[in-house]
């Protein structure tokens, strides 16, 4: 008990350091079973830490933590407010669910020699994502962003055991990701040149008065484009469909639910926490760059999803569309819009996590996640397909799921702003989502399975984590009080509006 209370003030650093140090230990464990057990334990610890942090933030306000006791402008500072506390919970929560789910799926999809390494890469990725989210230092963001990126290239490439195309997908991802990260660090460097600080809070003080400065303009452009690449903002999304299609099921589930979300958060933090939201440059970018791209991405990717045969690719395109919703939310620049964006960030992680995990079950049993592969599965794998349908309904935005809450706030924010056509497009896009979800439903429930195929339901070790996410989809769709209040606090904090 006493050690626990002694550890409490150090939760912010433990959040990152525990998974980071665990990664090399995991590598040394060698045996896949041990590595899995260890990485799952670490994931759950990280989840517990993030929940405690969220509770502390909601109760007592922002937490500042100075690394090594060095005061802020010189040392690195971790800053946790509602906006990143919720992202920490998403990342570590999805990590915990996916790693609990992993052993059977990894056993089937990844060669024996690589399994221990795969878990190691996963832990590095987790540490990187948590680090990006928690830090209050712009350069530190870049460092963790690189850790995340390098380890996620490995996670994608690990799919090569099943399909060699995973290698080109990972390579493509690497090229695009590196360009993105480089742009980002160039932007940060330019800001440092002008302001002499890397601390985000200090940047927030010093950048707004310099908004007419050419260097700041350039920095802004580099950062927005760089992060746009990382979060797969249309038309910078081209790396994403292949990466998600060919990565192993667990890798896809983890990356799809967390990594782009973290990039969205960083963009959010830089747009509102560094550059002032009222400036002319900013307003122009919002209205004439981000907003149109988000809307086009939302529609184009949804239409593309309808024509997909491979379900992982279908969901990948749907992710691009959903990222459009999030960017849309903060492109409004209003409290309601930001609330909707943060809310959707959380909700979408739950939906995509559940959907990709369900597909992982299909992959394990059928070995084929195409429209053909799921034929007749409604009877043969009832729990798996029920999970998929529940996730799909959430994606459409049917009431009593988290998707509905997201849609409600997104449309509400658009109407509040008087942007009728955007509200109409959001709804049109969710109606198109009905088409691609229903194609799967029809194949699974209204068609006979291919002749001679007999498959069993997926093992419980995979069904339980999948269903935990499905139930979370329903729980936070029926009682959204918590998520909405956190999202609103986050939005107000980012905009600097007093509650």
């Amino acid at each position, binding site marked *: 008990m006493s050690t626990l209370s002694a550890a409490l003030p150090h939760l912010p650093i433990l959040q990152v350091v525990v998974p980071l140090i665990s990664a090399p230990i995991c590598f040394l464990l060698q045996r896949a079973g041990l590595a899995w057990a260890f990485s799952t334990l670490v994931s759950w610890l990280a989840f517990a830490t993030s929940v405690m942090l969220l509770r502390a933030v909601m109760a007592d306000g922002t937490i500042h933590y100075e690394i090594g006791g060095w005061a802020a402008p010189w040392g690195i500072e971790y800053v946790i407010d509602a906006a990143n506390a919720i992202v920490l919970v998403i990342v570590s929560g999805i990590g915990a669910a996916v790693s609990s789910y992993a052993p059977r799926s990894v056993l089937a999809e990844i060669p024996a020699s690589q399994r221990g390494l795969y878990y190691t890469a996963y832990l590095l990725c987790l540490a990187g994502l948590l680090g990006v989210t928690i830090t209050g230092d712009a350069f530190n963001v870049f460092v963790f962003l690189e850790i995340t990126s390098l380890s996620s290239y490995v996670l994608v490439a690990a799919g090569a055991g099943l399909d060699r195309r995973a290698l080109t997908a990972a390579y493509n991802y690497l090229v695009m990701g590196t360009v993105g990260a480089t742009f980002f660090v160039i932007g940060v460097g330019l800001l440092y040149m002008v302001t002499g600080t890397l601390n985000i809070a200090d940047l927030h003080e010093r950048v707004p008065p310099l908004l007419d400065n050419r260097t700041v303009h350039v920095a802004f452009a580099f950062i927005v484009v760089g992060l746009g690449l990382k979060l797969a903002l249309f038309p910078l999304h081209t790396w994403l469909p292949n990466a998600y299609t060919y990565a192993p099921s667990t890798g896809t589930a983890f990356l799809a639910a967390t990594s782009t979300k973290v990039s969205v958060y960083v963009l959010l933090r830089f747009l509102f926490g560094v550059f002032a939201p009222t400036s002319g440059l900013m307003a122009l970018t919002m209205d004439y760059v981000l907003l149109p791209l988000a809307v086009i991405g939302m529609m184009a990717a949804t239409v593309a999803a309808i024509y997909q045969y491979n379900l992982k690719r279908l969901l990948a395109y749907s992710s691009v569309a959903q990222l459009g919703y999030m960017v849309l939310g903060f492109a409004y620049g209003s409290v309601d819009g930001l609330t909707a964006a943060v809310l959707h960030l959380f909700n979408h992680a739950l939906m995509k996590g559940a959907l990709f995990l369900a597909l992982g079950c299909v992959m394990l049993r059928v070995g084929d996640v195409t429209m053909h592969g799921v034929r007749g599965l409604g009877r043969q794998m009832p729990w798996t397909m029920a999970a998929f349908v529940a996730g799909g*309904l959430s994606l*459409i*935005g*049917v*009431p*009593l799921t988290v998707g509905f*809450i997201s*849609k*409600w706030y997104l*449309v*509400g924010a658009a*109407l*509040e702003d008087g942007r009728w056509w955007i*509200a*109409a497009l959001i*709804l*049109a896009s*969710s*109606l198109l989502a*009905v088409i691609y979800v*229903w194609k799967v439903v*029809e194949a699974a*429930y*209204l068609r006979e399975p291919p002749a001679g195929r007999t498959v069993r339901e997926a093992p419980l070790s995979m069904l339980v984590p999948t269903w935990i996410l499905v139930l979370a989809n329903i729980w936070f*769709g*029926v*009682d*959204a*009080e918590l998520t*909405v*209040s956190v999202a609103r606090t986050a939005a107000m904090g980012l905009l600097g509006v007093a509650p």
Partner: protein
Amino acid sequence: MNPSFLLAATLLLPLIGTLFIALTGSRANLREAVTLVTAGLLAVIVYSLLQDVLAGARPAATLVEVVPGLPLALEIEPLGMLFACIASGLWIVNSLYSIGYMRGNHEHKQTRFYMCFAIAIASAMGIAFAGNMFTLFIFYEVLTLSTYPLVAHKETAEARQGARIYLGLLIGTSIGFQMVAIIWTWLAAGTLDFAAGGILRGKVDPAVLPFLLALYMFGIGKAALMPFHRWLPSAMVAPTPVSALLHAVAVVKAGVFTVLKVVVYVFGVDLLAETGASQWLIGVASFTLIAASLVAMTKDNLKARLAYSTISQLSYIVLGAALATSYGVLGGALHIATHALGKITLFMCAGAIYVATHKTEISEMDGLGRRMPFTYGAFLVGALSIIGLPPLAGVWSKWYLAMGAVETGLWAVVAVYMISSLLNVAYLIPVVARGFFKPSAEPVPQSVGAAAAPAAGGLQEAPLLCVLPPCLTAAGCVVLFFYADAVVALLRPLVQ
């Protein structure tokens, strides 16, 4: 018992029933017993709630606060009480009928059928007792989704196609229009609670009220206002008990019920009357009313004809609401009850004919009436009630609707109601006339049945459980004629 508890029980009971239907799926008799017991208990609960409501009580319950300011709440008012009585009462009759029909036809996947049916009833209860527009919308969507497997039941290419149109139009209109209207209302009024006299007075510019109303009216796809009516004929690929209870009673009535709720408790009749925001709706509803009747005349498939007849009858109710007078609303509400009884009778008869003879086209049914006198008798009574002849219930709702039209001085609307009644005669009576008066196209088989029971005069009725339910509802049409004042007394607070 505590009314709030009973209120929640109306939702929970069918859901518990669903669970037990699933558990007893392998033993058909037990499974059907579960359905019947659940339906019976539900009717008892609804009846006891009815006594409370008649005594002036307004039981309410809040289930959960979804997001701040938007609770999932139930509250009973007269209109919802009426809808719940109809849906729960007819569920019993229809369950009996389902047993006869599904077994008589050897349909597959019956467990799924009964489960989805129970969920659909639970959502109908949720719609009936919804305390705010948000709750209503949620159950409205659940109803759509839970009836999808029923429409796709046969799993043929045709069923898949029909179910696709069904889902596409109902989800499309509800998310595309209705949800926007609800969010708009929420932003403007700051509440979605149903309140007497409406919640929009002074909150929305009267100039845009017609537009908001349009979002609601077309968004409520279940009311089948043209041009969003195609889902109803498509849904006819479902087994007939589904068409009978859901697409003559629960689903479509949920649609017009929502229309009335929106008109009475969101907009307020007075507001609509003062601003004239519903004027355009009179035109659209009148057009749907007449056009659907005309289309019905061209249909040879009996169920398709009944489906278009339903579209037309639903517009009676929408038109009543659009008139924005107390008689119009009262007549519309009453028509929910009378048309439900009449139309479920017709559908069940159509199903009985199908079970007995496997015929679906009216032109093939010549002379059948003499072999199936009970079925055809019930059909005649149902048809006459829908046409609106005394002493059948249908006359009262048409009476009030016409009074509503007279009240506004819109004689054209009165004419629409009258012309449509004539069209009803034109498309419903020939079915009966062909059955009784035309000679049978094929010789009456002189087989075992006729030889064994010569006294029955060659009777070839469907199984008892297929024939008894329509006879019961036909009798209901007569009874309701004499007790219509009780229903009007229940509904009276609606327009005061």
